[in-house]
C-alpha cells in the first residue's frame, strides 16, 4: 500500500513540475534555515556537557543583594579556591583560571601574537581536555611549564610532538623561556573554558601582583574559580553553610537587609549553566533569548514554506477531486485517501529535508560567519540533532499535508464525477494563510530596517571626539624609557601626520577600563580614569567647555590635576563646569587629592548601549603609554601607514607593529547588532521570496481556473489593464491586511529592542510605510507576472476548449 502511494506521489510530483519545485524549494530552504539555527541552539545548550564530571563542577560567584541593587560577579579572589577545599569537606578539588591576554610568543626567530591563559595544574583532572602528547600529571609540572593546543603546536612548530621544546613569552620588556609540558586536543567549540596556550597559575602567583593577591579577599586579578564537588554533595543549595564560610573570611560584613537576609554571599553555578547564565554573568554569558529568537525565525520560515504547500494543494484540489471521486467509488475509504495525501506531503518533506541538509551543510561556513560561531554539522557531536531534525521533517509533512488531506478527501464522488467542479483557486482560509506569510515578511523587513538604522545612527553619532582618520598603535611591547620617546619624536617630525598622543589604555572594543570610587563633597561616585599625554585632548579633538588643558611645564599637573567630563560635574558635584573648576575630591582609600583644572564636553568612549558615565583624564608622572593615537590625513591611509611602519622598524626591528583604526574599533562594539541585522535581513529576504513563490503558484492556478472568465470578459471588451486589476486586486488586498497586522507587532518588538540602547534612533513612520510598500510592490510584481500572461492571451484559445 505504502509503495503504491509513494509511486503515485512521485508521478504527481513530476506531472506538476512547477508546483513541486515551489514546494520542494521552499521546504528545502526552510529546513536548511531550521537545521542551521537549531544547530546553533543545540550548540548553545550543549556547552560544557562534554566534560565527564560536568554535573559535579560548579563555578563560584559573588552575589550582592541590597534593597536598591542586586547583582553578581563570577570573578573571584585568589585565596577562595584553596580556602574552599580546606574548609568544606565536599569540595574535592578546585581550579583557578586566569584568562587570557594576547602575548608575543617567540619560537626560533618567528614571533606570533597568541592568547595565554593560566590555570592550576589540576585543570586537567577536573575538566575533560584530552592530551595528545604528555600526561596530565606533568603537563604543568612547574610554573615555567605550558600546554599548547594541537592547532597552536602546529602553528608554532609545524607538528604536535613538541613536549620539552622551548617557547618564549614576552613579559615586560623581555622574552622569557617556557617549556612545553603537554599538547592538548583542540578545545571543543562548545567549551566555556578556552585556551590556546595554558600556563601554570603558580607563575601568576609568583609575579608581584599575584603575590599581593594571595591573601587578599578584597581584590581580584580576574580569575574564575571552579570547584569539583563530591558525588552526593548538596553544597550548592546549602546557603547557610556557604554563608558561614563567607563569614569566616569577611568578618566585617555584618550589614543585613531589613528582612535579616545577608547582603553578600557566595553562590555555586553548575558548569552546564555557565555559558547561558545571564542571570549570574550579565556581560560574559550568551543570552539564551538569542537562540529562541533564531529558532522562532527558522520556524517562521518553515511555516511560510508549509503554507505554500497548503495553499497550493488546496488550490489544486479541483484537479485532484476527480481522482478522489474515482478512488472512493472503487472502494477507497476516506482514511486511505488521507493516508495517501499525507504520504505525498511526507515524501515531499523528506525529499526537501535531504536537499535542505545538503544546502545547510553548504551554507554552514557562511552561517558561521553570520553568527560568529565555528559550528560543524556533526551528528556524533550533536546527537540531539537527529531527533530534532527527524521530528521536524515529520511535523512539516503533517502540518503541510493534514488540511489539504482532510479537505480533499471529503469530496463527494457523485458531485465531483458528474459536474465540472470549479474552485475559485483559493478560499478565505488559504488567503489568511497568505496574509500570515506577509505578516512575517513585513515584520522582518521592518525589524531589519530599524536595526540597520540604529547601526547607522550609532556609527555616525558625534561621539565628542575624532574617531575617523585616527590610527591606534599598540605600544605595550616598547621600552618606555628608551624606545617610546624616540618613536614619538620620530613621528612628530613627520609632516604628513597631523598629531600624536599617548594613553595608558586604548579605546574601542576589546580594550580595558580603569575606574574606582572617589569621595566628592557629599557623595561617593565611581569615576572611569584615563591617564593620558598632555596633547591627547587636542589630537582627538575633544573640546574643553571650561578651564585649561594639562601643561607639562606646570609641575602640579602631573600630581593632582584632572580634567573631568560634564557628566561628572553634574552627577558628582551637582554644579556647572565653570563652578567646578578648582573643586577637589579624594580617592576613597588612599586619600589622594585631585583638583579639577578643566571640564570637557561629554564624550562616548563606551558603546552606545550605555549613557555617558563620570570620567576623568589624568596626566601622571609615571606615565606608561600602551597605545599611541596618530591622526592622519583623510583619504587613502596607506602612505601614512607606511610612514608609521618605517618609524616602528627603526626602533623595534624584532617585533611587528600592531595598529588599528579607531573608527573600526568603535564599530566593533556593534558586532552583535551587525550580526543580527544580517540574520534578520537574510531571514526577511527568504521569507518574502518564499511568500512570493507561493503567490506565483496561487496566481497561476487562479488564472487557469478563471481562464474562461477572462476569455469571456475580453471578448466582451475588457482591457488588459482591467483584467489584470481584477486578478491582482484580491492578492493585494490580503497583503494590505498583512501590513496592518504586522505594523503594531513590529513596532512593539523594535521598541523593546531599542530600549537596550542609551542612544537610539527614532521609529519613524516612514520605516513602516517603506516596508509595507516594499512588500506590496514585490507581491504586485509577482502576481502581475502571471496575470499579465493571462490577460494578454488570445481569448479564442481559452474559449475553444470549453
Amino acid at each position, binding site marked *: 500500500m505504502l509503495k503504491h502511494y509513494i509511486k503515485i506521489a512521485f508521478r504527481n510530483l513530476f506531472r506538476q513540475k512547477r508546483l513541486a519545485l515551489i514546494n520542494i524549494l521552499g521546504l528545502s530552504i526552510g529546513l536548511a534555515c531550521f537545521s542551521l539555527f537549531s544547530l546553533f541552539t543545540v550548540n548553545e545548550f550543549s556547552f560544557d556537557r562534554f566534560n565527564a564530571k560536568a554535573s559535579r563542577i560548579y563555578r563560584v560567584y559573588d552575589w550582592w543583594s541590597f534593597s536598591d541593587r542586586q547583582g553578581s560577579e563570577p570573578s573571584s579572589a585568589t585565596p577562595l579556591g584553596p580556602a574552599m577545599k580546606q574548609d568544606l569537606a565536599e569540595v574535592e578539588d578546585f581550579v583557578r583560571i586566569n584568562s587570557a591576554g594576547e602575548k608575543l610568543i617567540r619560537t626560533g626567530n618567528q614571533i606570533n601574537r597568541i592568547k595565554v591563559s593560566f590555570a592550576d595544574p589540576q585543570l586537567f583532572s577536573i575538566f575533560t581536555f584530552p592530551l595528545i602528547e604528555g600526561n596530565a600529571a606533568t603537563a604543568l609540572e612547574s610554573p615555567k611549564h605550558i600546554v599548547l593546543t594541537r592547532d597552536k603546536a602546529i602553528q608554532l612548530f609545524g607538528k604536535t610532538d613538541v613536549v620539552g621544546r622551548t617557547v618564549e613569552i614576552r613579559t615586560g620588556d623581555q622574552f622569557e623561556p617556557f617549556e612545553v609540558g603537554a599538547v592538548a586536543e583542540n578545545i571543543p567549540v562548545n567549551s566555556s573554558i578556552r585556551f590556546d596556550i595554558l600556563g601554570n597559575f603558580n607563575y601568576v602567583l609568583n609575579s608581584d601582583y599575584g603575590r599581593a593577591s594571595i591573601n587578599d579577599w578584597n581584590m581580584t586579578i580576574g580569575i574564575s574559580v571552579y570547584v569539583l564537588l563530591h558525588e552526593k554533595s548538596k553544597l550548592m543549595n546549602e546557603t547557610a553553610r556557604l554563608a558561614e564560610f563567607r563569614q569566616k573570611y569577611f568578618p566585617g560584613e555584618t550589614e543585613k537587609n531589613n528582612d535579616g537576609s545577608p547582603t553578600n554571599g557566595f553562590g555555586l553555578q553548575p558548569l552546564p549553566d555557565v555559558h547561558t547564565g545571564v542571570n549570574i554573568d550579565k556581560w560574559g554569558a550568551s543570552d539564551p533569548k538569542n537562540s529562541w529568537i533564531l529558532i522562532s525565525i527558522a520556524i517562521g520560515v518553515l511555516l511560510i514554506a508549509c503554507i505554500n504547500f497548503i495553499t497550493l494543494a488546496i488550490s489544486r484540489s479541483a484537479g485532484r477531486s476527480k481522482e478522489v471521486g474515482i478512488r472512493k*467509488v472503487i472502494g477507497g475509504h476516506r482514511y486511505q485517501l488521507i493516508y495517501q495525501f499525507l504520504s505525498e506531503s511526507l515524501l515531499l518533506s523528506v525529499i526537501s529535508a535531504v536537499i535542505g541538509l545538503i544546502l545547510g551543510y553548504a551554507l554552514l561556513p557562511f552561517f558561521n560567519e553570520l553568527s560568529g560561531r565555528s559550528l560543524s554539522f556533526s551528528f556524533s557531536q550533536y546527537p540531539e540533532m537527529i531527533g530534532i531534525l527527524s521530528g521536524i521533517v515529520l511535523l512539516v509533512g503533517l502540518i503541510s499535508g493534514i488540511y489539504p488531506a482532510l479537505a480533499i478527501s471529503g469530496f463527494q464522488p457523485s458531485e465531483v464525477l458528474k459536474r465540472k467542479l470549479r474552485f475559485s483557486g483559493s478560499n478565505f482560509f488559504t488567503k489568511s494563510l497568505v496574509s500570515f506569510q506577509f505578516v512575517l515578511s513585513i515584520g522582518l523587513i521592518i525589524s531589519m530596517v530599524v536595526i540597520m538604522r540604529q547601526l547607522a545612527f550609532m556609527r555616525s553619532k558625534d561621539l565628542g571626539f575624532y574617531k575617523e582618520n585616527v590610527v591606534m598603535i599598540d605600544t605595550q611591547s616598547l621600552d618606555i624609557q628608551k624606545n617610546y620617546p624616540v618613536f614619538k619624536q620620530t613621528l612628530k617630525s613627520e609632516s604628513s601626520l597631523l598629531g600624536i598622543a599617548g594613553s595608558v589604555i586604548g579605546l574601542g572594543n576589546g580594550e580595558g577600563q580603569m575606574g574606582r570610587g572617589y569621595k566628592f563633597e557629599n557623595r561617593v561616585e565611581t569615576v572611569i580614569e584615563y591617564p593620558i599625554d598632555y596633547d591627547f585632548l587636542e589630537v582627538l579633538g575633544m573640546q574643553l567647555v571650561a578651564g585649561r588643558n594639562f601643561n607639562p611645564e606646570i609641575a602640579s599637573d602631573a600630581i593632582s590635576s584632572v580634567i573631568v567630563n560634564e557628566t561628572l560635574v553634574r552627577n558628582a558635584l551637582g554644579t556647572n563646569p565653570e563652578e567646578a573648576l578648582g573643586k577637589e575630591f579624594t580617592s576613597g582609600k588612599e586619600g589622594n587629592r585631585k583638583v579639577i583644572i578643566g571640564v570637557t564636553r561629554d564624550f562616548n568612549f563606551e558603546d552606545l548601549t550605555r549613557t555617558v558615565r563620570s570620567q576623568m583624564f589624568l596626566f601622571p608622572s609615571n606615565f606608561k603609554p600602551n597605545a599611541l593615537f596618530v591622526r592622519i590625513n583623510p583619504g587613502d591611509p596607506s602612505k601614512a601607514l607606511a610612514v608609521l611602519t618605517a618609524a616602528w622598524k627603526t626602533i623595534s626591528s624584532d617585533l611587528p607593529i600592531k595598529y588599528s583604526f579607531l573608527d573600526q574599533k568603535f564599530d566593533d562594539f556593534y558586532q552583535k547588532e551587525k550580526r543580527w541585522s544580517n540574520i534578520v535581513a537574510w531571514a526577511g529576504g527568504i521569507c518574502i521570496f518564499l511568500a512570493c513563490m507561493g503567490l506565483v503558484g496561487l496566481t497561476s492556478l487562479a488564472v487557469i481556473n478563471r481562464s474562461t472568465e477572462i476569455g469571456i470578459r475580453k471578448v466582451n471588451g475588457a482591457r488588459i489593464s482591467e483584467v489584470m486589476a481584477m486578478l491582482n486586486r484580491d492578492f493585494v488586498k490580503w497583503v494590505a491586511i498583512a501590513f496592518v497586522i504586522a505594523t503594531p507587532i513590529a513596532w512593539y518588538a523594535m521598541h523593546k529592542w531599542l530600549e537596550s540602547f542609551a542612544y537610539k534612533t527614532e521609529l519613524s513612520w516612514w520605516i513602516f510605510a517603506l516596508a509595507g510598500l516594499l512588500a506590496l510592490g514585490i507581491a504586485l510584481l509577482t502576481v502581475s507576472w502571471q496575470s499579465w500572461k493571462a490577460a494578454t492571451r488570445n481569448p479564442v484559445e481559452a474559449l475553444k476548449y470549453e
Partner: protein
Amino acid sequence: MIHLNNIDKYYDSKFQRTFVLKAVNLEVKEGEFVSIMGPSGSGKSTLLNIIGLLDAPSAGEYSLYDKSVLDLKEKAKVDYHRNFMGFIFQAYHLIEEMTVYENIETPLIYKGVKSRDRQAMVADLLDRFNMVAKKDLFPQQLSGGQQQLVGIARAIIGKPKLLLADEPTGNLQSVQGEMIMETLQQLNNEGMTIIQVTHNEKFAEYGKRIIRLEDGIIRKDVASKIVFSI
C-alpha cells in the same frame, strides 16, 4: 435484489422545491440487465447514483437483499463499493497518473488482496480483454474504447454482483460502443446484474428490460424487444 420504494429526490431553493425523482418504485432481480433511458435532466444519473450509494434519496426506502441501505455508515458504504458493486462512467474516469495495470489493480489494493493474487487476477482480466500488451500504457495513450474497457475491467475485478454503468458508450464511436455493449452483455450472461443509463436506443436494446424516465417519473418499464443470443 434491489428494491426501491417511493423514492423522492428534490432540492429546496428559496422559493420552490425542485424534484429530480418523484415516487420512483423499482425492483431489480439478480441477473437482470436494465437500461434506463430518458431525456437530459430526467433524473437517470441521479437514480443510478442512489442505487450506487453515491447519493442519498430525500425520501423513500431502498433495500439491497431486503436490507435497508439508507443511513449506512461511511464504512459500510465503502464495503458495498468494494465487494458488491462496480461503476463505469461516460468519461471513463481512469486515474491519469496510473498505468492500465495499476488502474485495474487499485480496487484490489483497497480490498486488501495479497500482491500475488492481485497479479493473477489482473493478468486474467487483461488477457480476457486482449489488453496484455497495453498494460504499461497510461490512459491518455489509449483510444476511447480501450479506455472504457479498462474502466470495465476495473469495475469487475472485485467480482461485484452489480455493475452500474452511466452512459458507458456516450463518448464512443458506434463501433467501439458496440464492442463495449457486447462485453457488458457477456458479463450479464455470466450472471452479473447490470444497470445502465443510456441515450442510445440501440444500445438500450442490449438490456433485457428498459425503463423510461421523464421528469423524475418512471413512464415505462418494459422488457426489451430483441433478445440477443450468443
